[in-house]
């Protein structure tokens, strides 16, 4: 096994510390967010999710001083209970990016939060709802869409996908639910921009010929789906966005373009029910259905099928342990989705509850899988991942026995 170059160690160590501290804090904030220093530090479900994913993403990027700066600034933004802290953290996270587009996005995000603070009666996140305004929302939406790569759709020259910048953008719009509730126009704008980004990038991924290009478009599509789910402004949408961010992280950890065994590639593609990818796609579509927007739900599902097709077209090369381990971890997390929903997704949606509508929740279905419920607590979608896997295992054993007995295989 190759040893890690010594100059990589601080970056990986920083990533491990962020991911582990995010996981550790999650245990502390299961019931309610942890607030300290007179409200300047707030640790909630969103903080923990962002720290965990940002920490894991540090393992997927080349070592560079910018990454450490981005991680530290994103940590400050997501742990800050003060709008100035959020604005500064987001600004620094994106301003140290390589490209001018991301830097512009950082300015837009910082201006959006700065304007909210300027107009609100308080700069504390939980008491600044009266400062929410359409201009701030437009700035935040534009900044997030640019960070997720919407401008790359308009040019023939494709830039690299920057996962920390994208994560910062998605975290910025999710944090807006802590400030206050959105109006219907904002929701519609988010759904349109997110949906357009998701399906356009999924189509680019499906039609791209180079594996690396496909992978980058695919990751942008996952980001677009996360924005679409966020636009549902419901606990189900927030949970779906969290699952999509986790799927994005696992795809980056697996790096299937560098070589993957076919079985691992299929598990990572999200085409196998019970895997993390499938649960993430399903939850985004189910959130749209629970919000009463069937057109969006079908568009999201079409996007998911395009993503599955794009991912499955470029499985190649020798299997690598990192790809296999990520695929297996994705399978375990997908099968353990009910536990994930209780442990990670429920704090995420509960702590943002103040800004969310009641139009849809995703609940554990015993140990068998997940359920999506609408505002009237009626079931609108079911994903019995564990039950389905057990059934397929049972059928597999039976068919194998019959085939051996008949001498077919």
């Amino acid at each position: 096994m190759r040893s890690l170059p010594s100059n990589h160690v601080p970056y990986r160590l920083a990533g491990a510390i962020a991911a582990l501290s995010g996981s550790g804090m999650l245990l502390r904030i299961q019931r309610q967010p942890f607030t300290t220093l007179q409200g300047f530090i707030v640790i909630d479900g969103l903080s923990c999710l962002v720290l965990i994913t940002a920490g894991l993403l540090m393992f997927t990027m080349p070592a560079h001083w910018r990454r450490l700066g981005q991680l530290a600034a994103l940590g400050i933004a997501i742990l800050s209970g003060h709008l100035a802290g959020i604005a500064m953290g987001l600004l620094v996270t994106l301003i140290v990016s390589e490209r001018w587009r991301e830097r512009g996005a950082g300015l837009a995000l910082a201006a959006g939060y700065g304007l909210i603070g300027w107009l609100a009666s308080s700069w504390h996140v939980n008491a600044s709802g009266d400062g929410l305004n359409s201009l701030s929302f437009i700035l935040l939406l534009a900044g997030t869409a640019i960070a997720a790569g919407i401008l790359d759709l308009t040019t023939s020259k494709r830039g690299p996908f920057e996962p920390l910048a994208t994560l910062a953008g998605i975290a910025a719009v999710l944090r807006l639910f802590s400030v206050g509730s959105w109006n219907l126009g904002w929701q519609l704008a988010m759904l349109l921009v997110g949906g357009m980004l998701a399906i356009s990038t999924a189509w680019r991924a499906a039609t791209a010929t180079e594996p690396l290009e496909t992978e980058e478009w695919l990751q942008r599509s996952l980001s677009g789906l996360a924005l679409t789910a966020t636009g549902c402004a419901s606990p189900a949408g927030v949970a779906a966005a969290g699952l999509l961010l986790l799927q994005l992280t696992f795809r980056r950890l697996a790096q299937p373009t560098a070589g993957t065994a076919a079985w691992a590639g299929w598990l990572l593609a999200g085409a196998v029910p019970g895997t993390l990818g499938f649960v993430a796609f399903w939850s985004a579509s189910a959130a749209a259905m629970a919000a009463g927007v069937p057109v969006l739900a079908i568009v999201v599902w079409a996007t998911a099928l395009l993503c599955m097709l794009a991912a499955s077209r470029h499985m190649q090369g020798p299997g690598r342990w990192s790809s296999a381990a990520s695929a297996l971890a994705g399978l375990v997390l997908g099968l353990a989705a009910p536990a994930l929903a209780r442990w990670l997704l429920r704090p995420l949606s509960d702590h943002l509850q103040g800004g969310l509508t009641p139009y849809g929740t995703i609940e554990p279905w015993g140990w068998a899988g997940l359920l999506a419920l609408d505002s009237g607590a009626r079931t609108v979608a079911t994903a019995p991942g564990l039950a389905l896997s057990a059934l397929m295992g049972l059928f597999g054993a039976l068919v194998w026995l019959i085939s051996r007995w008949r001498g077919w295989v």
Partner: protein
Amino acid sequence: MSDLLGTFGQGWPRLLLYPGGLSAVLAALLLARVRGIRQMEPLTAPRLIDLLPPLSAIALLPLAPAAAFAYSLDLLTAVTLLLWPELRRAAAERCDPNQLAAQYLPTFLAALALVSAAGTFELSGLLRWPPSPMRQAAFLLGAGAWIVAIPRLAPPQPHLAAACSALGLMLVGILPLSAAINTITVAPAWLSVAAAMAIALAGIAASCRLPVQWGYGWAIAALVATSGVLLDSG
């Protein structure tokens, strides 16, 4: 976990006899024969793996008179399981995405009509006849568009996994048809399923002979009805 084992223990006729297991394999072979496949490929290990997702989806369909099963599927999960052999083929043969989009578009429009009328992704929702005339129209047109689109969605392939895939897609299409038959007659549930199956088989056979534009025509009609439903509920 004991719930899961108990459910499998009580639901074995559904898994092994009807609608999954033996009856699914026999019906899939029959459907393949109707669609012109005379000789099936021998079963190999990859083909056996391809067979499992569609077979599992068929076993969990809410078809009368099979006993209820605690862990039901929704349309998204069922369609993903049923399209597994096609997805594998599209990936292996590097099918043109433009061509795939043309094939799948009528099915997405049909699915939109069905879920808009039913108000849920749950397959059991497709068994409930909707109350308003606009939703009823979307329901029936959606079912028709779904069935007409099947031959292009799952073209005949000489192996059991593809045959099960086509059968499963057809069975999803007969759920709203059987709901309609149940509403206009007092026939037993199994008879309405059989009648819906006969209608679906005739629809598939007819659509194989009709030009591709017919599929789009159905889908557009379903879309028009869906827009009526959406405006109605808005």
